């Protein structure tokens, strides 16, 4: 073909316009989804927060759609919901995002209470020490309030349900404090009302209240627990364990103070486990089940028991199981086997089936094979 001026110009325009009609035109004319069961319009305050979200480029690190394979993108299993076209029906300007440097926010509403968000926006490291999110301390109090309103709306009707739970639970917990520790801005005080400690017990099933730590508080366990505490918990509970981390200023009720042994005796390990695994709705305590393994959680609980006896202040090599608070619900550890014992280290007293020469057992006869007690001599 001859590439004349007219041919190039008209051709270039026609080809692109044709494809535009084929893709954008046809899809917009034919694809008009209905509102999903969760969709709702934003309130004026939420919409104002959305403008702040747009203007500050939140969209560059946070997505707002969950793909079918993303079962843990939002960092909150109860908040999982794969995006539907009808979820976006009321929104002008899509903020779907293309980068997920931070968590997906499409179901963020109600996962945390408002005060957690205020601490987090002031400096994300206060609540999430590993975060690389910028500080939003430059936003005014009102702007932050609007932004929080928008973030709490993400997830729409499902988020509203979660946000309501946060609000009602907060009211109950703060009431149980009866003006003592953690209420009305009182921090650093381990003088909890009995009503509060009793109320916390009612939040977990009684079988959990009676559960003891499944992991013995060996030095290894305590050191690991300390490491987890330092990297995850200090933002709220503080380097002293008094509940006076930098985020505490923003939180109501205040983070729990671990320094009083008699208060700790009113919590069982199972109760702590429940709060770590599922979080404590109404407070800033998030669910750690997605981030920590079972052993991580038991180790950090073992470590918490040493805080009244100086677990956070002694050098690491002096941290030992004698510092663990005992008594009350802080019961002795169950049937220990001592990982530091010499016998364990050299494999004594453990039954290892020794592979036998000859043909492998056939059929169900395999089960009848007797394990052979193996007692190797410690090599020195």
């Amino acid at each position: 073909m001859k590439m004349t001026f007219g041919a190039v110009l008209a051709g270039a325009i026609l080809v692109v316009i044709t494809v535009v009609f084929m893709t954008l035109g046809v899809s917009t004319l034919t694809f008009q989804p209905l509102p999903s069961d969760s969709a709702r319009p934003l309130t004026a305050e939420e919409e104002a927060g959305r403008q702040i979200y747009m203007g500050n480029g939140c969209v560059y690190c946070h997505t707002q759609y969950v793909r079918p394979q993303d079962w843990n993108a939002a960092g909150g299993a109860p908040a999982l919901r794969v995006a539907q076209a009808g979820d976006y029906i009321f929104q002008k300007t899509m903020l779907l995002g293309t980068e997920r440097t931070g968590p997906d926010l499409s179901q963020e509403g109600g996962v945390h209470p408002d005060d957690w968000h205020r601490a987090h926006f002031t400096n994300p490291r206060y609540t999430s020490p590993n975060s690389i999110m910028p500080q939003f301390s430059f936003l005014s109090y009102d702007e932050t309030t609007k932004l929080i309103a928008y973030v709490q709306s993400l997830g729409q009707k499902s988020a509203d349900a979660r946000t309501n739970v946060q609000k009602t639970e907060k009211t109950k917990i703060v009431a149980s404090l009866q003006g003592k520790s953690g209420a009305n801005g009182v921090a650093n005080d381990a003088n909890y009302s009995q009503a509060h400690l009793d109320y916390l017990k009612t939040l977990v099933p009684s079988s959990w209240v009676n559960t003891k730590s499944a992991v013995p508080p060996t030095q290894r366990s305590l050191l690991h627990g300390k490491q987890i505490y330092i990297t995850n918990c200090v933002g709220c509970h503080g380097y002293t364990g008094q509940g006076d981390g930098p985020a505490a200023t923003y939180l109501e009720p205040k983070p729990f103070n671990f320094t009083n042994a008699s208060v700790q005796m009113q919590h069982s390990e199972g109760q702590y486990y429940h709060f770590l695994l599922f979080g404590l709705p109404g407070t800033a305590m998030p669910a750690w089940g997605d981030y920590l393994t079972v052993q991580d959680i038991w180790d950090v609980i073992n470590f918490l028991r040493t805080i009244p006896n100086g677990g956070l202040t002694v050098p690491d090599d002096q941290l030992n199981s004698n510092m663990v608070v005992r008594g009350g619900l802080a019961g002795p550890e169950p049937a220990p086997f001592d990982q530091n014992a010499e016998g364990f280290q050299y494999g004594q007293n453990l039954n290892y089936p020794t592979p036998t020469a000859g043909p492998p057992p056939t059929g169900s006869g395999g089960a009848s094979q007797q394990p052979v007690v193996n007692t190797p001599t410690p090599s020195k």
Partner: protein
Amino acid sequence: MTATQELSGSRAATSTDEYGASRAWIYSSIIWLAVGTSFALIAAIEMVSPDFLGGISYLEFGRIRPIHVNSVTFFWLSMANIGAFYYIVPKLTGRPIWSEQLAKVSMWLWNIVGILMVLTLAAGFSQAREYAEMIWPLDIFVMIVLLLNAFNILMTIYKRREKKLYVSIWYIMGSVVWLPLVYAIGNVIWSPFVGNPDEPNQNLFSGSLTGINDATWNWFYGHNILGLWFTTGGVALVYYLVPVITKTPVYSHLMSMIGFWSISLFYSMVGQHHILATPTPGYLKLIATLGSIGLFIPVLTFLTNIWMTMRGNWGRIYASLPLKFVLVGTVFYFITCIQGPFQAVQSFNRLIHFTNWIVGHAHLALLGTMTTWAMGAIYYIIPVTLKRRIYSPGLAEIQFWMVVSGFLLIMISLQVVGLIQGAEWLRGEPVYKTVQDLKPYFAVRAIGGSMVVVGAYIQAYNIYKTVRSGPRIQTQMEQSLAEVGG
């Protein structure tokens, strides 16, 4: 008057020659590269050390990032490309630019848009659409300048003396027409306001649609700004520079033609591959994936054409700095366009979507490929039109290695960490846990980025010194040498 006197000329004569507009655009672009990469370095450091400059609203990461992206795309690459067009088009049409004055006015208008872009984004006014962050009033301003430019270039070509249209001219014609088209459509420029005034939507300055279809429009734009502007503009440069510097005709006219028509067809189809997992119509995703694979055709025809033109000329890259920039750019273009189609295939997209792999890929295209092409064009056009040799070829060499190795550090660190992120998410790790894996790679990225910044400042210094005190080209031989990129 001897030939020597004529060539050395007076300063006044040099500044009023027919390529003044071309150089004006190029000078601006060089400053914008230094500005844009400096913002990038701040952003890169903030990703390693988030409390660096923390609490300063206008230097917050989410505001700096779009300033970086817009500076380097619209105001470095676009201005460098347009500057090169204002040199290439007169050369290939045998006549001066239709209106030199209009070209200079557009240059100033474009710079004003750039300054307004920085100010508005730093103040927190953004459309929050990637590559289209400039708010609606600026969009209108942008459209005016784009149309002025397109008109100027098209009029020059229409009133040409050389009847035959060379392949670079096709690409330039396409690019200057497609950019305003894509910009207006992708910014949904006719819909800045909300239809229902009772709705509590204060978003008065963002052209967009309501509902999920808006994402389709957004990414039609997001990809075609690359595909139908930066790529095609860059290809026009390469199609001009390589044959001119090597004094070899383009290998195949047929391949040029296949490349041109297939790029305009396939590139406009692929926007949806940025949002393959969204609840949008499936046929759009199919078209996008097929179009992305179809892009092998224009890419491979173009590269074959250029590399075959280089037959017997490869030794020239040691002697010609522009050629070195351009050909290294073609190698990165090859890698870009191998990665691209694979990324658009669902199975691979599952792994790398949302991760930093994509950021690495974007830098591969815009920094590794288009930026080196534009730098090659600048190091060709400035000496030839100014009749001065480059002030320091040694500095230019350092610039080359700084940009190329800095870019490689950026790309490799980001793509490695992208694979790590993708693998961990598929395994079910929450995002907050994978954030800590990013940090060492982001540190490498910041180091690579600082090398690119150094390269950008070296370029600005070297070109400035060339303009002020580069050795004058005095003999016919030196002029001929400059015209083959020596």
